[in-house]
Each structure stands twice: as structure tokens, then as C-alpha cells.
């Protein structure tokens, strides 16, 4: 399929040719420090639907001009949080502050937030032009100015030719761009997006991700973006908040949530990982020695919250594992046997067995082939490995 040019940059010159996909390849620009000035604050927000608690005592701050993704599986409370920010839902308790003002009692139509819905929510009885003019008419702008701003918004999403069409006559991607133009045309102070790319095919979705990211950078928009697609969140966001069961498991830059997962849920939800169970034998100088059930010991980077003797998980990303024929003293080394090897184009996926424990390694495409049954050493440095403390309940269970 032909790649569509960016709709924001007529020449498409800003869009780099080599597209950054994996967070491992992410440029350092991504790690830009968040929270320039706090603009939105969720203060101890709790939301019940009947007896069901969907958001539990949640705190979250979002900076002005920041792109924050709310990432999590369905039912984790991320969309509910967005709906509360938009004013479609009321929190059961807690306060939402925007620009220092509590907005709990402000009705949706006075919140000045552009919302892009997953199903577009375009008005079927209006043309594309009328849809985009709608928020401007509601604000009582003059006819000439409305026409002018609609023209510019349509130029921005490269849909000028579709002005007189009705939404039903457009493709899904075009409808999504109309929805985007409609949410941006009145220059809202926050743009909320609820899985806006969910209905698009993969190629279009990736293009739209880059387009929205460019839009964010150029216009300095504050964007809250809900998604269940981890690669989407990593590609676009300044910070990612990982949701699980109504709580935020971890919030940080894409690099942080990928490389330094705080919990087992984050490690497993974002990307693929190897989780190895063991007991902490020693802790010294930011490194922990963890003894596995097989008796082998692994040295891993560790942050606070882990005590000696605790049962923990080790998380090792598959692409950080190297396979070597001889033991290498500088690395953690596990003696393994290849059980399967799959060529996947851009990488070679090797499945290993370390004793009874399965491991997965992703090797560069220049790697040699590994026949099943080959004995190899899986090597990785202490820095490529994270100790994940089990949640409180599990820790106690492990201690008893």
C-alpha cells in the first residue's frame, strides 16, 4: 500500500524516513522531562458504577503541552477517567482541577475540551464542512471567520475536496481526520482522544500516530490519549500511565515504563518479557543477586523496595538476551537448550529452555540459525535485567 503523506506537513519533510518503532530504538528526545507546569490534576478520584469500582483513589497530574497516554486493558478505568475529564461522567469522590480550577460542576459544553471519539461521532445529517463549523457556531463566531477557519482546518487534514460530502461518503480514515479537525478547530485547551485510531487499519494507524504526534509538537497541544495498544502509547507519548483495575501501576516516559517496569503487570503488558522467579540472596550497590530455583544466580539492577530473602521476579526483555557458545564471565549466563527457532523477517525468535524454565530471545537478523537441541548460553548484563517486587499480598504469601 502506498504510504500516505503526512497531512500536517505538505512536503512531509519532517517525517523521518527510517521510522522509529521499538522503544529500544527511541531517540533521547523522547525522554524530555514532563510536567512543565501542571495543568490538569486528578485528585484522589474514585468512581463507582453501582457496586463496581472502576477508578480507585487515583492521583495524576498532566503538564501543559504534554502528551499523556492512558494505557491499559479494557475495563482498567482509563476511558472512565477520560470521560470524567470531559464531563460525561461524574467522579464518585475526588476533584478534577484544570488550570487550578475545580471542574467537577462545570458542564461538558463549558469545559472547552476537544474530544475525538473512537467511533468518530460525526453528525450524519451535516456535511464535513458543517461538522467542522459546528463548534465555531456554538461559540457564536461570525460567518466569515467560521468559513475561514473551516477552510484552514480542512487544509490541515488535507480534506478540502470533501467539504460538501457527508460523513457516510468518506472512508474510515477520512472520517477520523474530520473528527480530528472538528476537535481542534476551536482551539480547545485540552484535546482528549478515546482510542481514536482503533478502527483504522495498521498502515493508516501508524501514519495517523505520527501525524498526531507532529500536530502535538507544532501546536503545543495538551493531549490526553486513551489506548490499549502499547506500541501506540510508546510511539506518541511524552509520558505513559499504565492502568490496571482502576489504578495506575506506573507512570513515566515510554523508556521508563519499558526498560524499568515497576510491576509484573507493566512488564508483561508492555512488550514481551521473560519473567524468572527467584529469591534475593544479596543486595549491594544498586545490584541484587537473585538465586533461581535451579541454583543459578543472576545479578540484576534493582531499585528500592526489595529486601534480602524476598521472592521476586526478574524481567529480561527478549531482545536483550544474547546467545553465546561459551560462558562469558562479564554477563549473567544461563545454560540453555534451543527448543525452537523462528525466522520473523526483522528478527530471529529463539525459544530456549533453561532447565525447566522457558526463555525467549530475539536476535538480530544477522544472527546465525540455531538448530533445536543446540546447547547455548543465554547471556545478558545486569543492567538489562530488572528485579520486580511482588505485590504486598504475594510477598506475604511467599514469606509464609
Amino acid at each position, binding site marked *: 500500500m502506498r504510504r500516505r503523506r503526512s497531512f500536517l506537513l505538505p512536503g512531509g519533510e519532517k517525517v523521518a524516513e527510517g521510522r522509529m518503532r521499538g522503544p529500544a530504538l527511541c531517540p533521547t528526545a523522547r525522554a524530555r522531562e514532563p510536567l512543565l507546569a501542571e495543568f490538569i490534576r486528578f485528585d484522589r478520584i474514585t468512581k463507582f458504577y453501582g457496586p463496581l469500582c472502576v477508578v480507585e483513589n487515583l492521583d495524576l497530574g498532566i503538564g501543559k503541552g504534554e502528551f499523556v497516554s492512558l494505557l491499559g486493558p479494557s475495563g482498567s478505568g482509563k476511558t472512565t477517567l477520560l470521560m470524567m475529564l470531559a464531563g460525561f461522567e461524574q467522579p464518585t469522590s475526588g476533584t478534577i482541577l484544570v488550570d487550578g480550577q475545580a471542574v467537577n460542576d462545570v458542564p461538558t459544553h463549558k469545559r472547552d475540551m476537544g474530544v475525538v471519539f473512537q467511533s468518530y461521532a460525526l453528525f450524519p445529517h451535516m456535511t464535513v464542512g458543517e461538522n467542522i463549523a459546528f*463548534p465555531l457556531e*456554538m461559540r457564536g463566531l461570525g460567518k466569515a471567520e467560521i468559513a475561514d477557519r473551516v477552510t484552514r482546518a480542512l487544509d490541515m487534514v488535507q480534506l478540502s475536496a470533501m467539504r460538501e460530502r457527508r460523513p457516510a461518503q468518506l472512508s474510515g480514515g477520512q472520517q477520523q481526520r474530520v473528527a480530528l479537525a472538528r476537535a481542534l478547530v476551536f482551539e480547545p485547551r485540552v484535546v482528549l482522544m478515546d482510542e481514536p485510531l482503533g478502527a483504522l487499519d495498521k498502515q493508516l494507524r501508524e501514519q495517523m500516530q505520527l501525524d498526531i504526534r507532529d500536530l502535538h509538537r507544532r501546536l503545543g497541544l495538551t493531549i490526553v490519549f486513551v489506548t490499549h495498544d502499547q506500541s501506540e502509547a510508546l510511539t506518541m507519548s511524552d509520558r505513559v500511565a499504565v492502568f490496571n483495575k482502576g489504578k495506575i501501576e506506573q507512570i513515566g516516559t515510554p523508556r521508563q515504563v519499558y526498560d524499568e517496569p515497576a510491576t509484573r503487570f507493566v512488564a508483561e503488558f508492555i512488550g514481551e518479557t521473560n519473567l524468572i522467579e527467584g529469591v534475593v540472596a544479596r543486595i549491594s550497590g544498586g545490584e541484587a543477586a537473585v538465586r533461581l530455583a535451579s541454583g543459578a544466580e543472576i545479578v540484576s539492577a534493582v531499585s528500592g523496595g526489595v529486601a534480602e530473602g524476598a521472592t521476586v521476579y526478574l524481567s529480561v526483555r527478549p531482545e536483550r538476551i544474547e546467545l553465546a557458545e561459551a560462558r562469558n564471565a562479564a554477563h549473567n549466563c544461563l545454560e540453555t537448550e534451543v527448543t525452537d527457532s523462528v525466522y520473523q523477517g526483522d528478527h530471529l525468535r529463539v525459544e530456549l529452555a533453561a532447565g525447566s524454565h522457558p526463555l525467549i530471545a530475539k536476535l538480530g537478523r544477522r544472527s546465525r540459525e540455531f538448530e533445536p537441541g543446540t546447547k547455548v548460553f543465554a547471556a545478558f548484563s545486569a543492567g538489562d535485567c530488572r528485579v520486580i517486587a511482588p505485590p504486598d499480598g504475594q510477598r506475604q504469601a511467599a514469606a509464609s
Partner: protein
Amino acid sequence: MSARASRTGRSLFLLAPLLLFLAGFFVWPLFSMMSQAVSDTAVLRLLPQSAEVLAGWDRKSPPTPEMQTALIADLKAVEDTQALGDMVRRLNSARSGFRTLMSKTTSALSDEADPPADLVSIDKRWERPEFWLAIADALSPLTDRNLLAAVDLGRNADGEIEHLPADQSVNRVILVRTFWISALVTFACIAIGYPYAIIAASLSGWKRDVMLAAVLLPLWTSLLVRTAAWFILLQEQGLINDVLQMLGLTSGPVQLIFNRTGVVIAMTHVLLPFMVLPIYSVLITIPKNLMPAAASLGAHPLRAFLRVLLPLSLRGVAAGSLLVFISAIGYYITPALIGGPGDQMISSIIAFYAIGSANWGMAGALGVVLLAATLVLYSVYARLSADEPGRR
């Protein structure tokens, strides 16, 4: 090709019961009703010989002996006195004086002892062409008399269309009243049914089921039972008046029955499902997120309703209004039981002609007027809904 033919044959076979039913119980009665309105055989049936002779008459000159002989022969052959009465009534309505002329003539003809030589010898009036002209005109098997009379028009002696005198002009008043009551009922149904449908469509689960069941309940109850129930509720010592007086809203009983108010209340109740259901079915196809979207774009709930929900649901309102209005103009039992003499609708008049006075011609003609009004309304609706914006 033969496979397709056999498939078509099979389809027709399966459809045969439906087609036969429609032909036997819908198309044929409709056709016969309409033909009753324009057929006029009361005279032709009894005067077959005169018809042949009169066909050659120049409609101006005095009657020839052949014409008189033929009429005498026809009249002598008549045995059915009721048919004779019909014919005399028919002729008298075209030319007054026929009643006395005919009774004089028939009694003279039945006098076996002294049979008259010709008609003129019985009564001088038979010499005048006007009477023969009336017979000649009445011999035509088709007539527009009933259709014209249905809208208070008639033909004068010269055959021109003119208004009937005021004492004969009730149909138009009743037609206007029928449309007016139907319009009132339609508006009442919109006023109640539209918000009701919006609320029902916005709910889910058992609450929606209860609301729909409540509106469907009247459909599952006999019309007579519902009307009788309103009879009890609306009467002077009825539930509604008791409550009104208990609340101190009125000092004495309010007249709710045997007047227009009662008719509109009862008809609105009965016809409400036909308004609620089409609107509801349109509303549930409108995506749920359009109103939140409008709100997020800065639209006050009322403006969001006027700009988004109302235009999108108008198709349902139009369909519901059409159903209610068309059903209402044919209403009979409810106005007959709940209404006063000034609230009778066109169906009561049709029933009077059909059952009361056995004037099938007038009953048919009024039926045709009602059918024509319905078809006009429907074509307007079809034209409007074809241009409906936002249709896919």
C-alpha cells in the same frame, strides 16, 4: 433459465395464500366499495326496454309513442316494490315531482279493468321532455352524484356543479371536523410520545422494557375495553374528576366526557403506540455518542437537541404522525361512545349510510373521499421522506 422459472413458480406458490387473501378480503371489497360509489343501476335495472328506446331519442322532442310503450311495458314488468321505491327515489332526487307522477302512473297501470292507452293520458306531465330527460340521465350506469354529495356538491338542472343548500350540507363540516380532531390527536401524540420515546431509547434493560410494555399495552387490549375504561375514568363522578376536586383544582366536576376533550384524550391514548414506536425505532439507530460529542464541542443541551437529535429523529416523527393521523381519520367507536353529537367523525356518517339507511352509494363515496385523503397524505409523506437529509 428453467431453474429460474421454477424458482419463480415456487415463490408464487408460497405467496399464493397471501395473494388470495389480499385479493379476496382487501382488493375486492375495496373495489366493490368504490364501484358502489359511482354505480347507479337503480333505474337501468328496472327499465331495460326504455333504455334501448331512449338511446335513440334526441333529448329535445316530445316523447314518441315507442318510448311510452316501452316505459309502460317496463313498469308493468316490475314486481319488486322495494326496487321500484329505489328507482322512484332516484328519479325524484333528479327531478322533483317524480314521486307523485310515478305513484299516479303505477296505480293507473295496475288498473286491469281500464288500461290506459298511453302515459300522457294518465298525466299530462309525461308530455314534457324534462321528465324523460331525467329518466334518460338516470339510465347511465355510472354517476358522480354520490361523490359530489360526499363533499356537499350537486348538479343542478343544467348539469352544472354547485353547492348543495345549507340544510343538506353536513358532510363537509364533518370532514373538516374529522381532520381537525385527527390533527389535535396527532399533536397530542407528538407532545407525549416524542419525549416518551427519547426517554425509553436512552434507558436500557428492564426499564426500557417496562416503558415499551406500558405503551404497547393498549395495543393488546380490545378497543372497546379501552374506550369503556375511559368512559369510567372521564365521567362526572369518575376517577379524574374526583382527584381534581380532591386536590382543589376545580370546585365542581369538569365536563370531560361527551365532548371534544374526552374524544381527544381517549384517541390519543389508543394511538400513542403508533407514535412512540416509529420514533423509538429511529432513535435507537442514532449513535449514542453524538449528543456527548455536541456537548464537548460547546453546545448547550438544548441547542444540541435542536441541531443534532431533532433533525435526526424527524423521520420517525413524520412516520408516527402519518400513522396516527391516518388511523385517527378512520376512528368510529371512540367518538361514538365518548363524544357528543358534535364530535361524530366521518366514519360514523359512513356507518349511518351503510347500516342505518342502506345507502351504499353514499357510504362508498365517503369511503372514497377518506381513501383519497389518505393517499394524498401518504404521497406528501413519501415526497418529504425521499428528500430527508442524512439518508444513506
